[in-house]
């Protein structure tokens, strides 16, 4: 269970407050206008930006002071998810050991993870030789290997076409099901949320609301959401 307890983020006049709980194993979409603070919220959970007030806890344990890599979190960013000078297998291997000193068992796990995301035999390619969809799969394979109970996606598939994006989200949902990880992802597309999220957090007007079941929030959207969606 991930709890944001009185969390406040500020940047000059800009502010975002969050007071909410995400149950373990949930699949949550963060939706809201750009600039509202969706990515900032992920950065706070992942440990890249400290909240100006409040606490973030996972199953009761305060995450404050924990470095990003120590947190129970695997994150996939909007871009720069792969090191271009390392092969796909090395990029995945970093999820096991940051110094890449892998034994035979480790290398087997890397192969397994690559196979799981459908990249059999492509481990020796560098990111420049992979398509956008394949590169996203490499990032997913690494997140899978890290065995973290929370998976954060900061709109990593935004640059992919609609069909490919849907395919990747379906894969993400599958992987989250298999591992039981709690999934929190940022999206601009309500369709993405409808496809794989069971709950939605609306981030708008300086607040991140408590999660609401997906069908409920789209059936009866609050004012801020209808404004964002452009439906009246």
């Amino acid at each position, binding site marked *: 269970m991930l709890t944001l307890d009185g969390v406040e983020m500020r940047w000059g006049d800009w502010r975002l407050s969050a007071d909410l709980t995400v149950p373990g194993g949930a699949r949550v979409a963060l939706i809201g206008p750009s600039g509202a603070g969706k*990515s*900032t919220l992920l*950065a706070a959970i*992942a*440990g*890249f*930006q*400290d909240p100006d007030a409040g606490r973030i806890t996972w199953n009761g344990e305060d995450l404050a002071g924990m*470095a*990003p*890599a*120590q947190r129970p*979190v*695997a*994150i996939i*960013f909007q871009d*720069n*998810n792969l*090191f*271009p*000078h*390392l092969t796909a297998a090395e990029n995945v291997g*970093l*999820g096991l050991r*940051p*110094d*890449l000193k892998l034994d035979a068992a480790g290398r087997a796990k890397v192969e397994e993870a690559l196979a799981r995301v459908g990249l059999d035999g492509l481990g020796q390619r*560098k990111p*420049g030789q992979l398509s956008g969809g394949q590169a996203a799969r490499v990032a997913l394979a690494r997140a899978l290997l890290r065995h973290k109970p929370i998976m954060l996606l900061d709109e990593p598939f935004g640059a992919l076409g609609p069909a490919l994006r849907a395919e990747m989200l379906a894969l993400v949902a599958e992987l989250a099901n298999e591992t039981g990880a709690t999934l929190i992802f940022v999206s601009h597309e309500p369709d993405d949320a409808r496809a794989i999220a069971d709950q939605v957090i609306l981030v708008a007007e300086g607040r991140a609301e408590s999660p609401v079941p997906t069908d409920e929030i789209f059936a009866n959207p609050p004012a801020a959401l209808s404004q964002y969606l452009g439906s009246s």
Partner: protein
Amino acid sequence: MARGRRQLTAAAWTGAAALALVLAVTLGTLATVALRAEFASGLGPADWAAVRFTLLQAVVSATLSVALGIPVARALARRRFAGRGLLITLLGAPFILPVIVAALGLIAVFGRNGIVSQALLWAGLEPVSIYGVQGVILAHVFFNLPLATRLILQGWLAIPGERFRLAASLGFGPGDIARTLERPMLRQVVPGAFLVILLLCLTSFAVALALGGGPRATTVELAIYQAFRYDFDLGKAALLALVQVLIAGSAALVALRLTLPAGLGGGLDRTIRRWDAAHPLLRLQDGLLIALAALFLILPLVMIAVNGLPALASLPASVFTATLRSLAVALISAFATIALALPLSAWIVQRRARIVELFGTLTIAASPLVIGTGLFILLFPIVDPAALALPVTALVNAVMALPFALRALVPALTAIEADYGPLADSLGMTGRARLRRLWLPRLRRPLGFATGLAAALSMGDLGVIAMFADPEGGTLPLALYRLMGAYRMDAAAGAALILLASSLALFWIFDRGGRLDADA
């Protein structure tokens, strides 16, 4: 996201240690010099003459370089011709060209037996002499006209092309363009270029050593060397070193108020289409300017090759041992530069410290001879300084090359951390893992460039080594200087060719090595 947590603690500690070492070498030697200086005797008339000459030649050299650089840069900015890119690359070459080699090349062109004098004799006129005031200024213009041209060309190319198109659509002539577009740009660019060149001329030593001397053409740097070498008067040398610090330091303080231009950047291969400059007379003028500038730059180098090639077969063995010594010093110095620059860059990037510009300016103002005097005073009571000539030279060269290495590494590392820092943080890549798996692979190009630059600069340096080395134990530039002093001009030309080739090869190999197999 910009305020992210960073885990570079180990790197930061090494960076602080590197900074401490650099400060010890620069400020520590300065303090030593200040303590050792003998003020009682004061400055004699010859010393005041050196102060006056130092200032005079620097102002004249910088003024000439900039005044000639403006029309040459304008010609390069508005003309397209075959070989333009090559010429602009060549304008960067004096930077890694050993000073003593250039001096020899200039002697071959402008000396008493040089091409120009021969032509004058043939025409029934008096030959010219390169030694003295005019030689020092000529050599400084040779080195700094290309720099001035590059800096000012950058300014020209920074004017948006749309402005020239607008000017053309309004029917502007060359005069209108100069008034509305070019002069405002020059007012911004020229002071910085002038100050950089002034600083370089105030602190240059080898030019005065090779072409100056005597009561009318001795700089303060040369006077330090002479007090040291001929009179072995450490108190006097230290006092002159303080004077030198005062002169260069005040110029540097003025320069700090401006952001000094770097002049090593790329992107100069663009041209601006100029509708106003199509007049045949203007084309002729630009063509002549470019041809003269190219000739001035290339001819001395060609003479080195022409005179040096036949001499290669009969070079004294001492030249080859000196070459090996120089290569060793250059390689050690280059790796020391990187060993200092890498942790310092990490420290600067992590702290977002803005000391790079400060460093750059201060080390341009710092003088190897002042550092050398300080180190000599420190080492003399303990060991025979000649025994440490090569290590001290390597260390001082490494410190002098540091600002250029930082200028290459810090922006690159800043970009790497901005792009991949969060990913590395999220994966727990710290310390050695981050260095080996992220920084080194992605810094290959700037590392190769900086290593090559540092190696070439050290290979050609004639500064501290002249103070420390005994007659047998010098580097190649020193051996070359001694051959020139003994009027063995053939052997000198051969040694100069080897030195030139080694400097260029060192730069080329490392720079190229950094570009090979680089991933996008």
